[in-house]
């Protein structure tokens, strides 16, 4: 899959320019498309790490040809028969599945990282903002169970705005559910790494994202519990720009490592060697 098959909607330059250049959504610099892609969608000016699809992420981290998806058929459910002003959640699921080709906000599978076998769950922000819902929780629970059964390290790449409102209380219950999955790994001394990418917030940050043996973040990723606007309204103050960034989280002791995209795979490999018996 090509690194840049999507067209940016927020880019406001003439068509001809758009074909050659990408505008960095953070610093607005124009960057050669070829360079942007070679840089794995990282801005060479400001180090902004653009959000990746789950497939791009799997390409980045897993040895070519070794990824095997598991539980692909677990799809989003509609336990509340939810509807809002814009229509039913059921319809929206259908649309989103068609648009993204995904069945849920996470893809799970097994594969190798420089030869080491791992079980991997990768969230995808395109699917309802990567939100945690019943299907997401079930896939993560099953992937962890697979890791437990085969005694292989478990890695989750988080990219989520939090719990999915349309599944109400059931989505909230995926927090204890996924933490139970991690607790079982912990009891069996199976390594679990959490990789926090932009954004990792709400119910995901307050569950599996924050209970890893190792916490890795991508540079500048937004990580936190409550949303910036809610906090600003609560404390009636403006928050500094760096609030809830990966760097802020590291400074306050919640992240082990901040790893640029280019070094992520090799870093994982180095860490895994300490946690997996040869």
């Amino acid at each position, binding site marked *: 899959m090509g690194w840049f098959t999507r067209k940016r909607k927020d880019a406001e330059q003439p068509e001809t320019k758009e074909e050659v250049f990408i505008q960095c959504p953070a610093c607005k610099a124009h960057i050669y498309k070829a360079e942007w892609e070679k840089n794995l969608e990282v801005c060479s000016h400001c180090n902004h790490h653009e959000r990746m699809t789950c497939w791009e992420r799997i390409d980045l981290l897993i040895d070519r040809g070794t990824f095997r998806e598991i539980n692909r058929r677990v799809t989003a459910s509609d336990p509340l028969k939810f509807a809002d002003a814009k229509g039913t959640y059921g319809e929206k699921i259908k649309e989103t599945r068609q648009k993204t080709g995904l069945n849920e906000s996470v893809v799970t599978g097994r594969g190798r990282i420089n030869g080491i076998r791992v079980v991997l769950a990768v969230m995808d922000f395109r699917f309802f903002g990567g939100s945690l819902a019943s299907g997401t929780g079930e896939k993560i*629970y099953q992937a962890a169970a697979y890791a437990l059964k085969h005694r292989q390290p478990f890695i989750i790449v988080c990219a989520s705005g939090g719990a999915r409102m349309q599944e109400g*209380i059931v*989505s909230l219950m995926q*927090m204890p559910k996924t933490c139970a999955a991690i607790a079982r790994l912990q009891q069996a001394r199976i390594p679990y790494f959490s990789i926090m990418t932009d954004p990792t917030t709400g119910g995901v940050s*307050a569950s599996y994202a924050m209970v890893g043996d190792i916490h890795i973040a991508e540079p500048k990723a937004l990580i936190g*519990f*409550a949303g910036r606007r809610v*906090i600003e309204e*609560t404390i009636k103050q403006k928050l500094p720009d760096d*609030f809830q960034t990966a760097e802020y989280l590291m400074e306050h002791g919640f992240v082990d490592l901040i790893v640029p995209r280019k070094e992520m795979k090799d870093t994982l490999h180095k860490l895994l060697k300490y946690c997996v018996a040869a």
Partner: protein
Amino acid sequence: MYLDFEKPIEDLDAKIAELKAASSGTGAGPDPQIEKLEQERSRVLKDLYSKLTPWQTVQVARHPERPLLRDFIAGLCSEFIELHGDRHFADDQGIIGGFATIESHRLMLIGHQKGRTVEENLRCNFGMARPEGYRKALRLMRLAEKFRLPVVTFIDTPGAYPGADAEERGQAEAIARNLLEMAALRTPILVVVTGEGGSGGAVGIGMGDVILMLSNAVYSVISPEGCASILWRDGTKAPEAANALKITARSLLDLKVIDEIIPEPAGGAHRDPQGTMEAVKKALMKHLRRFQGLSSKKLAARRMEKFAAMGRYR
């Protein structure tokens, strides 16, 4: 204080009071007209409360006179020894806990604390705990595990505190850590949702072997107001959101998120705190007895299975 939908009760109460005032001092016996109105009142009250809408239920759950944690402690416990602090940073008052005795049961009682007065609410932050509140709760749960005491938690919070200081000290990590540790805790955990079950802030002490809920309590992933302003782009659509979110005890029982509803007296817990205490005590006793002598390792495994089954639709 009357809620909007209690207007018929308010009118009846006014009439009854009027008649009582008129007949007082006349020396006459019981006024049959008053008796009739009082019967009418209890019929209307029962009727109103038997078909509350989700949004009306939210209002009852947030009623300023609804029993708070301290009322439950006073009403249920023959002894309560509060234990303070998370041993790291502070003694949060949004969540409190300590050793408690209910009938013959010694246990660890932990819960969200709301206040009634402004001063009280400033102290306990309206029941919105900071990370140190969740960490104190975990410390006390560990203590309970060590001394083989069951844990009972009371849930009544608008949510975990969304403040800059809470973020700085790891609100997300504190809640996540609690869930991880509660999953494997080797002692029974009983949860009672008494008022507002506000999202992550509620579930952060809500991962139990048994989850009980008062009949007019609510439990939700987001407040109806918050949901309305996001999905309807209009905070006044909270009643619609409350409907859609399925936040009542009845809905949660149907969704298999809670195990049992504790019925409140007619007219809600605030009209009859004593009756509420009795109902809660009865339910707690039943489940405390049930868990006596169970293997603690099996218990934790079963707790994990219980939550694993939530949202499994295949």
